[in-house]
């Protein structure tokens, strides 16, 4: 995937602007169609949820589906104007931004609405499955590697890579544990029980907090890292990723465009 990315082009002047990320993310000529698609998607999605009783995640998925053609058009234009690496950055910022919104919604469902942990699944609840998280985070990691190979190499990018690697390891661990627990449940003849939402490496009851290898060590004393619940842990993983991605992209565009 990465080998096919051409070198950054100098077909625009993103580096001249104060906030090149805003220019990159600007819908430009797709502004009206994006707004229209958003309005139609939201109206259709929420309407079907409210009137027909469609599940919330289906309504959300519908809205995203309606927006997708416009987004694809916009990303193609990004590639034409700024090159493949900038386009990849644009895609990652968009989807990861949406992903962060999903985590904020989960946080609000848990803390503000008082929903139980297992029901605070965000807007795309059906996508809150371990394999989806696993695929997503490997995707993000590969995209970050692609961006770095395409020229986005700066201090922030290296930090971003570290965070993305950590987050991917966490979700790989979670996926393995998820299937191990499901196998145990099957062996006991238990069906219809979700094993979603188990502790991972970090957080309350996670590996760091409970492993005999870390017991009574300084690692167990890290507040938050060994005490935060799953919603907080993954909220902060994404905040960190976005927190690194934005300046990494900014510096990249300033230097290369």
């Amino acid at each position, binding site marked *: 995937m990465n080998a096919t990315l051409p070198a950054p082009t100098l077909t625009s002047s993103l580096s001249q602007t104060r906030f090149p990320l805003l220019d990159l993310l600007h819908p430009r000529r797709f502004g009206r169609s994006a707004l229209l698609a958003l309005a139609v998607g939201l109206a259709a999605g929420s309407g079907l949820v409210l009137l027909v009783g469609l599940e919330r995640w289906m309504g959300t998925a519908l809205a995203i589906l309606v927006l997708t053609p416009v987004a694809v058009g916009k990303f193609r234009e990004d590639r034409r104007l700024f090159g493949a690496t900038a386009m990849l950055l644009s895609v990652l910022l968009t989807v990861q931004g949406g992903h962060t919104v999903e985590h904020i919604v989960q946080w609000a469902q848990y803390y503000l609405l008082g929903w139980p942990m297992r029901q605070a699944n965000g807007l795309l609840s059906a996508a809150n499955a371990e394999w989806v998280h696993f695929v997503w985070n490997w995707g993000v990691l590969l995209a970050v590697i692609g961006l770095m190979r395409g020229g986005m190499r700066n201090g922030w990018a290296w930090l971003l890579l570290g965070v993305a690697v950590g987050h991917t390891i966490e979700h790989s661990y979670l996926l393995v*544990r998820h299937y191990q627990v499901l196998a145990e*449940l099957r062996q006991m003849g238990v069906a219809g*029980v979700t094993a979603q939402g188990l502790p991972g490496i970090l957080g309350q*009851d996670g590996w760091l907090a409970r492993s005999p290898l870390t*017991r009574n060590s300084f690692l167990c004393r890290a*507040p*938050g890292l060994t005490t935060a619940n799953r919603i907080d842990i993954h909220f902060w993983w994404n905040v960190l990723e976005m927190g*690194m991605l934005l300046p990494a992209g900014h510096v990249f565009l300033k230097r290369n465009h």
Partner: protein
Amino acid sequence: MRLFRRYTPLLAQCILLLLFSACAAQPGALATAPAPTTLAPVSVVQIPLAARQPCADRFVSHTLPFATGARLREIRTYESNGAGLSANDLDGDGDLDLLFASIDRNSAILWNEGGLDFHVQELADPFTRSAQIVDVNGDGLLDLVFSRRGLGGISYWQNRGASAAERFVLTPLPGVESYAYALAWADLSGDGRLDLVAGTYNTELKQHGIAAPETDERAGIFYYEAGEAGYTATRLSPAAEALSIGLTDVDGDLRPDIWVANDFGLEDGVWRWGDNQAAWQAIAPFAQMSHSTMSIEWGDIGNDGKLAFFSTDMNPYDTSPGALARWLPMMNALEEPHLAGDPQRMANVLQVHETGGWRNVAPYRGVEATGWSWAARFGDLDNDGLLDLYVVNGMIASNLFGHLDNGELVEENQALRNLGDGDFAPVPQWGLGATASGRGMVLADMDGDGDLDAVVNNLRSSALLLENRLCAGPGLAVDLRWPGSANPFAVGAQVELVTSQGVLRRDVRASSGYLSGDPLRLHFGFAPQSGLQEVRIHWPDGALSTVTELLPDTRLEVTR
């Protein structure tokens, strides 16, 4: 500027990590020992302790001739909660006897004949929960008190001092009329008499036909103040899921407060006596607490004069996939809404005082997860001068664990050794990991040899006595007597053993833990090289006594 730019990413990440870490910092309050005002002369008898059996570096398990729940064909919630026990010297022979409550048969006294030999005396008092040995009427004889399942209320067996068969007579407690699950005794009013706090388990009352327990005037948390003619009741709260009650100084005002451990989403209740209002006031001293608080325990775990509070909850100690799979169906079924600002977490909590107040340090000290935990006790199990922790666990409920054999979640009881730096570490090599479903538990020196044994009232299995055969240091036992007072066993006294290696502190309690009573006999362990300097006794009325010229491996009988 260039340097700034270079290090800005690193700085930003550090700030984010710090923000991330700040989630756990919590405030709290302080507890200290009372300041003495007068000196009280005492007479002291030092009795050599029994010789120890050859040490084996582990506890040795003995089955006791008592079992609760064994007659039930199927155990469901809340028979699943089992029953408690108490240990004290009921006949004055120097050996600690045992009192067991039972959910499905008569309660029983197990008379200690010495050499860990017991004979059973049944009491015609079936279907009991909490078992307490306490001198209710201040006559110098230890009485028996039970809470009963469902609508059975409280039963009081007065000790008439007669021969064994006729010693205990069922007697009314005037003014005590509520239902009860958890009980606790202490002198809360400061008049010397022992007052009673009783709490109901409203969920169980619903099973027994009380549709809305909070509207029933016999349900809730009750403070019964002892007086000349009986008890005066004050209902502290109609809402109650009381599994345990601790009477200890939480707010540092040198008076015992009332801490009720509630099950489910109902937060624990804590009340302090407000002198200005001349009434019990609800307070919220803890920023975090256990969610389904099963029991409360306290002790000076750092030998620094500060109490730490420990509460138990349901949290698997084993996070292997197999263990999680055994828990998961129940966890999914029991999930409750999460209220905004809810301080409860489904885990054990260890409250220690730090600047700003009480803070839960259980996650950092290795005590957050001990399984489906019921009774927890601090006690110096290895006689090294530090309070260790023992927790009994397990669950039997066919409606929750139908996916497991016999509806039973089998777990190993957890023994955690105090490492001296604030941390605890599991010590499976001590042989305390019994897998019977433990409920009530006491730590008491049952063979009088200067180390603490454990006695567990198991559900659907025989009770266990775990004899301490660790190769450990010497011990010292202290019995306090205060004849002529309304509190002849000095419940509420605080005792310090001053050694060359530090000061060890214990308090005389009538009841604590899960549905259980504490031995009035205090136990101190210490390292062999510790020089014993003196014992300081802070009597409940604030008077101070000191005892010097101490010999290790003796029992002090101190009479004021």
